[in-house]
């Protein structure tokens, strides 16, 4: 499975959850699959999707899902430590791990040999799962209580999708409106 189908699999279960989508193709693919005001497309600042999600999770009650990439997680690895210690009770981080910098041409990342799930577990995450071992729909319907780390192993590959034709202001304003409704 490539990223596009993985995001499709995730998106079909979404109701009112807030989604932070990683820079590049992950955002573009989500935009094509299921654009909604609850999606924040992070168009720059590689590495910070999980941090934006954490700040959002700590500041309101709706569930927050971060669609991150393995390369981006490696760039801001400290974020996992902060997330675990802050212990948000409405936060799900999904690591779409293609072991590559997909958006820049699939150059290999160190996740080829280094297991992000093991890292999450050793940081302290008690709810750290492989996507294939869980019922994602059920997780979304339950009270979360502590942050969840989901490792979604996929193959490299970008779908043939266009760019996001929303301005950053538009993305921000409609997202802010729905968050604070």
């Amino acid at each position, binding site marked *: 499975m490539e990223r596009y189908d993985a995001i499709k699999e995730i998106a079909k279960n979404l109701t009112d959850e807030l989604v932070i989508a990683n820079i590049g193709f992950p955002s573009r693919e989500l935009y094509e699959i299921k654009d909604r005001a609850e999606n924040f497309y992070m168009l720059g600042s590689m590495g910070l999707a999980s941090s934006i999600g954490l700040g959002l999770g700590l500041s309101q009650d709706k569930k927050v899902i971060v669609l991150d990439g393995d390369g981006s997680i490696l760039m801001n690895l400290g974020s996992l430590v902060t997330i675990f210690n802050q212990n948000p009770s409405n936060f799900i981080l999904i690591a779409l791990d293609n072991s590559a910098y997909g958006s820049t041409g699939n150059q290999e990342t160190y996740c080829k040999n280094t297991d992000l799930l093991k890292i999450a577990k050793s940081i302290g995450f008690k709810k750290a799962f492989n996507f294939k071992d869980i019922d994602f729909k059920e997780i979304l319907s339950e009270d979360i209580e502590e942050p969840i780390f989901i490792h979604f192993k996929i193959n490299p590959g970008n779908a043939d999708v266009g760019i996001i034709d929303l301005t*950053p202001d538009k993305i921000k304003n409609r997202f802010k409106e729905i968050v604070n409704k």
Partner: protein
Amino acid sequence: MLDSTESIYKGIKNAGINFIVSVPCVNLKKLLEKINNDSEITHVPVTREEEGLGICAGAYLAGKKIAILMQNSGLGNSINALTSLYELYSFPLIMIISHRGTKGEPIIGQVPMGKATPNLFEGLGIDYKRIEKIEKAEKAVSESWKKSESLKKPIALLFDINYW
């Protein structure tokens, strides 16, 4: 007598700041303690300033009034977030910064970044104010959030080594 920490703290309260991320500087020690004990403020210690700016951005989207407390060396760890996140989406932010490496700095390691700091803000197009006198602090901090919100970009307050 006016107190250096108290003056900034009062400004933070006047401005209505209720979400703060931080990486410590020795000069911020007392301020960080006060903020940690303030039940109206969510305080998130972070591992790196850039990460903190991401967290603040998320909090802002949920309606919080956000600030980062850091040493000026942390500006070096923040540049891409300030441009590719804050400038791109026009987010406000208050940066309360202990400005080390200026005249009188005893630690040589602070000097290069101390010198570069104002130039970096110039290059980023971010308004910054250098504050050396305690009497100026409360007002500057109090006004900062409204100003940042109307400019739709971050504002930096640099508290000089002689301020404390």
